[in-house]
């Protein structure tokens, strides 16, 4: 297993084509715009070596029996699923942002589960291939990015009907030794600082979309792959200094990128789905289930940080005992722990799939994520409320360091005794970073937008059974439990009751 430093050094071995702000980035490790994201991913490696966290950060490989980083593990028990979300909360607490590596973890697990089922139906050998690939991931402690979402072009059209064929990643050619693929994957978390790319289809495909029904893995610097790093709110503050960035060590959200595949060769041993459109729905839903359940872990870790920051600011401003502050903080805590309860429930209600890997409870995972799309906004709103207007009007670090303005600014921003003004500004910048920037829409759309969760919730709610329950309680259906309690047929019972009422032998109140 690599530690944090070794992970960062391992990225120097990549020779990929990355563009940002119109320029080719020669060394991603040395680029200040990327460093916070790299530090965050490094945390997933570093904590695996910390005896205080190894119990949840590492697991025993079911393939080799060796101790591995949990981010390369296939869940093989309910305990694994529970530890996975504990790991998410821990990393959210340590970094205050997205640590990126869970997308690849969920991709590994989803492809593991689905390739087994494809082979059962079609007699293919995808699962064995994938296990060989997984062994490499575990042995090298790689971070694969999970590349699911395509560019998608005109969403009213199926992938095969798009004006631009590359709107969806697809097979261009099938060769004896592999396939040639082209297309584009969008907003891929941690893409530029991953060792590998693991692709999955973005939606359910039909027969006409056979060539779009595709999953494979390639090295991140494979020939024909180009990255365009995405912009974020206030991103270039990282180039202005340290303080204004808010979270200069770990950044904000995951550092997403567009991945362009131009005639990329993938050898068959790294192809895990090539045309089995009937299994695209399973792969998408399995991945989405794992990923949506995570949000009740990582975002609650972030909530722990922002709740702590809000309470600290309230103390620094001398308002921590005001009843409305206590009420707001309590609201924030209750919402965060509600999401945590949801994600724990996803894990505890998980199940063993035919492949032997464990999957979370899909309905609860979608409920978890739907709560996240609302509650993150709400607890961040309360953080802004508690922090005050200063979070968007603070002077810059340069003005705070300018001898002409430094003294008066720091004196006036001093809070209660014992709270240095620069610390107050640091904390306000952190709250600004977490509550104003890209983290909010990420909570909305990451792992799928609310409408996607609602589709899944409606599909899996068991509404027919709920109607039967209601009909039984209402007396429309026969209630055999009630009949056993009263010791007779329900109709006969009510006839007797009515008769007794008429005879005024029971008191009505």
């Amino acid at each position: 297993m690599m530690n944090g430093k070794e992970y960062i050094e391992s990225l120097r071995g990549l020779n990929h084509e990355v563009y940002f702000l119109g320029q080719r980035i020669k060394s991603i490790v040395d680029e200040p715009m990327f460093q916070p994201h790299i530090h965050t991913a490094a945390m997933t490696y570093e904590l695996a070596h910390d005896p205080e966290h190894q119990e949840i950060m590492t697991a025993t490989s079911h393939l080799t029996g060796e101790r591995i980083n949990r981010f390369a593990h296939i869940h093989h028990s309910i305990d694994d699923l529970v530890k996975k979300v504990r790991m998410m909360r821990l990393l959210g607490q340590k970094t205050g942002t997205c640590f990126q590596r869970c997308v690849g973890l969920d991709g590994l697990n989803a492809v593991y589960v689905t390739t087994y089922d494809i082979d059962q139906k079609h007699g293919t050998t995808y699962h064995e291939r994938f296990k060989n690939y997984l062994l490499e991931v575990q042995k090298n402690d790689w971070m694969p990015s999970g590349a699911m979402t395509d560019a998608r072009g005109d969403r009213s059209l199926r992938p095969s009907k798009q004006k631009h064929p590359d709107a969806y990643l697809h097979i261009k050619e099938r060769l004896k030794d592999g396939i040639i693929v082209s297309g584009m994957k969008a907003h891929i978390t941690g893409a530029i600082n991953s060792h590998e790319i693991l692709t999955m289809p973005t939606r359910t495909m039909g027969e006409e979309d056979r060539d779009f029904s595709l999953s494979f893995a390639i090295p991140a610097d494979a020939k024909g792959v180009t990255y365009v790093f995405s912009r974020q709110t206030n991103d270039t503050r990282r180039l202005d200094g340290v303080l204004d960035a808010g979270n200069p060590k770990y950044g904000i959200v995951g550092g997403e990128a567009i991945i362009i595949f131009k005639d990329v060769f993938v050898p068959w041993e790294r192809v895990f789905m090539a045309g089995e459109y009937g299994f695209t729905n399973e792969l998408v839903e399995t991945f989405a289930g794992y990923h949506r359940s995570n949000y009740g872990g990582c975002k609650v870790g972030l909530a722990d940080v922002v709740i702590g920051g809000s309470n600290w600011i309230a103390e620094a401003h001398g308002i921590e005992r005001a009843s409305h502050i206590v009420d707001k903080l309590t609201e924030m805590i209750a919402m965060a722990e509600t999401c945590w309860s949801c994600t724990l429930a996803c894990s505890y209600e998980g199940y063993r799939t035919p492949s032997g890997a464990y999957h979370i409870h899909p309905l609860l995972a979608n409920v978890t994520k739907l709560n996240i799309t609302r509650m993150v906004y709400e607890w961040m709103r309360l953080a802004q409320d508690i922090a005050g207007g200063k979070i968007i009007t603070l002077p810059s670090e340069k003005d705070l360091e300018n001898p002409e303005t430094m003294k008066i600014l720091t004196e006036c921003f001093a809070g209660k005794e014992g709270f240095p003004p620069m610390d107050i500004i640091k904390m306000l910048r952190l709250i600004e970073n977490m509550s104003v920037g890209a983290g909010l829409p990420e909570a909305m759309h990451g792992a799928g937008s609310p409408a996607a969760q609602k589709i899944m919730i409606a599909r899996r709610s068991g509404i027919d059974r709920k109607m039967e329950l209601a009909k039984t309680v209402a007396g429309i259906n026969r209630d055999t439990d009630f009949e056993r309690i009263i010791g007779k047929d329900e109709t006969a019972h009510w006839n007797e009751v009515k008769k007794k009422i008429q005879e005024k032998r029971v008191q009505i109140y």
Partner: protein
Amino acid sequence: MYSIGLRYCGGCNPQIDRARAVRGLQEGLKKLGMAVNFTADRDSVVDLLLLVNGCVHACLEEAYLKQGGTTRFISAKGEMVDNHYVREDRIPEILIKKIAELIGPPSP
């Protein structure tokens, strides 16, 4: 006569109608002329256990494995039977197939 111990999970939020699945199984076995004795008595010695779980989480199977039970079992769990996904309406048919494999064809 071949005996099957019938165990139901608690039924907190089942994805399938467990009792209907078992009724379908019993009727199916009867139609095929397969003589099987079902018992819910937990102390009876049986040839096979049928674990009827309402959902794929399969509390009953989990508990049985945890307690180290040694009797052979078939686990119906939501829309799965043992290691295979099965639509709810096909659960009785799959269970009959599995039981028939264990006890052999019905006597003429």
